[in-house]
C-alpha cells in the first residue's frame, strides 16, 4: 500500500505546472454562464488544446496524452491549484467522449473528438424532459425513422450550457411499442442550430442563462450520428452516467484547491475565537483529503482491473454535499461581504447548490447505495 506516483505521472505534473504558470489568465474570466464569458472560456479551451492539455486522458491520436487515471488526477490537481478557468467543454470531454471511445465508430471519433478538444464545438447534454427527471426512462421525445436517418420531435430541458453551445447528445424513444420504458431508446447527436431546433435559455437562481430548454420539431439526424445500435440507448447512457458519477465529473484537485483557498481566507479573515467556524474550515480540509484518498483507492482498484460500480453513487453524494458546505463556510467567513454577487466564492456557491440535483439527484443516489451496496429491498420511490 503506497501513495507514490510513478515518474511518468510526476513528469506530467511538472510539465502541466510549468505550462499553466505561463498561460493561466492573471484575472478570472467572466462567468461562463454568460455570452461574453462563454466566448472567453471557448478561447481558453483552444489555448489549452494548443498545449495538448484539454483532454489529457484521451489517446494521443485525438489530441490527448494517453494519461492513465493517476496522470489525469495529477493534472487536475495542478489545473485547479493554478486557478485555471472552469471547463466549458466538460459535458463533451467527460460525458460524450468516453461514450464515443466505448461505443462510437472510428468515423465518429475522428469527426467529433478533434473539434471537441479544441473548443470549436461545445457540447450540451439533452437528457431530462419536463415529465422525465429522476424517472429518466419516462422520456417521451421521439426519433422516427426516415430516409437515411431519424426525425427528432419533443422537448428536452435543464440542458446545461445549451444557451450558447453548438451541439447536443441524448436519448430518444425510437420504439414506442417496447415492453419496458428503458427499452426502445436510441442515443444520438444533433446540432443546436439545425432546422427545427429552438433553444430557450432558462435563468438559474442568479438569473444567468446556465441552462436551456430545447424544442425539437422533426429535426433530421443522419444515421452516422447515432451512437451504438438503435434501441440500445439506455445501456449506453447508463455507462456514460456511470462515468459522470464516478471519477471524472469532479476531480479531487478541484476541492483540494478550494480547501486551500478557504484556509488562506480563514487565516486572513477568520476570528481565532470563533472555534465553530474554525471547525468547519478544518472539516473542509479533512473532506478534501478524504475525497482525494477515496479517489486514489478507486483509481487503484480500477488500475488493478476492477469495474467501478454503484460505489460511484457514494462519490457523488459526498462531493455535492461537501461543495455546498465548503462554500457556505467561505461565505460565513466573508461576513457582510458574502452578499456581493459575482465574486468567485459567490459564483461557486450558486454553482454548488445545483450539485445535489444534477447528474442523478442525491435521493436517487441514496436509493442506489441502499439497494445495490447494502442489499436493501426495493420500495416505492
Amino acid at each position, binding site marked *: *500500500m503506497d501513495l507514490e506516483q510513478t515518474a511518468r505521472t510526476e513528469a506530467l505534473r511538472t510539465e502541466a505546472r510549468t505550462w499553466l504558470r505561463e498561460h493561466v489568465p492573471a484575472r478570472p474570466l467572466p462567468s461562463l454562464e454568460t455570452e461574453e464569458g462563454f466566448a472567453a472560456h471557448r478561447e481558453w479551451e483552444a489555448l489549452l488544446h494548443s498545449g495538448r492539455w484539454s483532454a489529457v486522458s484521451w489517446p494521443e491520436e485525438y489530441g490527448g496524452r494517453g494519461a492513465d487515471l493517476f496522470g489525469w488526477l495529477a493534472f487536475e490537481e495542478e489545473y485547479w491549484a493554478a486557478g485555471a478557468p472552469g471547463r466549458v467543454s466538460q459535458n463533451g470531454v467527460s460525458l460524450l467522449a468516453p461514450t464515443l471511445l466505448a461505443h462510437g465508430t472510428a468515423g465518429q471519433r475522428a469527426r467529433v473528438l478533434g473539434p471537441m478538444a479544441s473548443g470549436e464545438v461545445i457540447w450540451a447534454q439533452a437528457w431530462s424532459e419536463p415529465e422525465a427527471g429522476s424517472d429518466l426512462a419516462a422520456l417521451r421525445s421521439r426519433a422516427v425513422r426516415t430516409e437515411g436517418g431519424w426525425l427528432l420531435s419533443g422537448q428536452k430541458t435543464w440542458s446545461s450550457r445549451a444557451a450558447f453551445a453548438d451541439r447536443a447528445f441524448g436519448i430518444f424513444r425510437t420504439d414506442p411499442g417496447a415492453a419496458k420504458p428503458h427499452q426502445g431508446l436510441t442515443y444520438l447527436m444533433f446540432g443546436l442550430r439545425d432546422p427545427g431546433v429552438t433553444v430557450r435559455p432558462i435563468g438559474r437562481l442568479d438569473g444567468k442563462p446556465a441552462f436551456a430548454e430545447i424544442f425539437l420539431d422533426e429535426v433530421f439526424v443522419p444515421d452516422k450520428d447515432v451512437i451504438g445500435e438503435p434501441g440500445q440507448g439506455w445501456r449506453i447512457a447508463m455507462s456514460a452516467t456511470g462515468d459522470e458519477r464516478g471519477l471524472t465529473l469532479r476531480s479531487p484537485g478541484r476541492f483540494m484547491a478550494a480547501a486551500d483557498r478557504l484556509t488562506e481566507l480563514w487565516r486572513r479573515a477568520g476570528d481565532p475565537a470563533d472555534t465553530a467556524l474554525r471547525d468547519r474550515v478544518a472539516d473542509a480540509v479533512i473532506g478534501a483529503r478524504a475525497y482525494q484518498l*477515496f479517489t486514489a483507492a478507486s483509481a487503484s482498484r480500477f488500475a488493478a482491473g476492477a469495474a467501478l460500480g454503484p460505489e460511484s453513487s457514494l462519490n457523488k453524494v459526498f462531493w455535492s454535499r461537501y461543495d455546498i458546505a465548503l462554500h457556505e463556510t467561505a461565505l460565513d467567513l466573508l461576513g457582510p461581504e458574502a452578499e456581493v454577487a459575482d465574486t468567485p466564492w459567490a459564483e461557486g456557491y450558486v454553482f454548488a447548490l445545483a450539485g445535489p440535483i444534477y447528474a442523478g439527484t442525491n435521493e436517487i443516489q441514496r436509493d442506489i447505495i441502499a439497494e445495490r451496496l447494502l442489499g436493501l429491498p426495493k420500495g416505492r420511490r
Partner: protein
Amino acid sequence: MRFLLTDEQREFGRSLDALLGAADTPAVLRAWAAGDHGPGRALWGRLADAGVFALAVPEAYGGVGPLPVEATVACVELGRHAVPGPLAETLAAGVLLAGAGGPVAEEWLPGIASGTAMVSLTLEGSGPYASDADAADAVFTVTGDELRLAAGPGESSASADPARRLFRPEPGGAPVAKGPAIRAAARAAGDTAALATAALALGCGEELLRATVAYVKQRTQFGVPVGSFQAVKHRLADTLLGLEFARPLLYGAAVELAEGSPGAGAAVAAAKVTAGEAGYAAARTALQLHGAVGYTEELDLAWWLRRARPLRDAWGTPSVCRARVLAG
C-alpha cells in the same frame, strides 16, 4: 501508486475476523464488565499468537513493527468484534517504550509482543484517564520529558461503556526514563493510540451498520420490511457513506506514519475525527432503526452502541483533532 491493501494484509484481516467471530466476544464482554478479566486475557493471548501486538514492537524486542498499516487492519477487526481491554494503549506503549529504550524497554516490550503484558498509559494532553488500568500489568505516565511507572491504577470511575473502566493513575510513581527522546516517543505513541482508536471506531461502526441492515430486512411493519422505506434506506446510505470516506483517511494516515512523514500527526487527527464521528453516527442510526429494543440491554448490539461515543472521544476529541488538522 497502489493505495490498496495487499492480498496478505487482506488475508490477515479475514483471519482475525474469523478468529474473533468464533470467540463469542459478547460473553467475553459480559465477564470483563463484571470484573472477570480471565476470558479477555485469554482472547488477547490468541490475538498475540496471531501477531497483533507484535505489530507495534520493533524486532529488537521480539516484535515485527512498527507496522501501522497492518496495525490498522487489525484494529478495524478488533473494533468490529468489540474486543475489550486497553488495546490502543498497549499498542501505543510498544511505540513509547521502544522510543525510550533502555531497561524499561527490555523489561516490557517482549511481553507486549507476546501478549503476556497488558499495558495502559496516559500522555500529556491525552486526558486524565488510563483505561482499564485495573486489568493492566503496568500503567505508564508521561509528563514533560519524564516517563514513570505508576504505583497503581489509582482512583476509578465507570465509563459510559460498561466493558471499560477509567482510572486516574496514582501520582508520582517510579521514574523509568527521562530526556528529549521521551517527548518524541510520547508524540509517536499518541499518534499510534489515536490511529488505533480511529480504526476501532471504524470497525465498531461497520458492525453496527451490518447488524442494522440485517435487522431492517427482517423486521416487518405495515406488511413490508422496514428496510424498504426510503427514510430508512437513506439514513443507512448516509451511514455507509460516512464509514467509507473514513477508511481511506485511516490508511492514508497509516502510510504517512510508516513513512515518518512530517504531516503524519495532522493525517492521524483527520482520520480520528472522521472515523470517530462515522462510528458514532452508525450508533445513532442503529439505535434509531432498531426502535425500542435497541434502547435496551436485551440485544448484544448494546455493547457496540455504548462503545461508539467513548471511541469517538478517547485519544483526541473531535475538537482537538480539528485544531490539529489546521495546525498542520
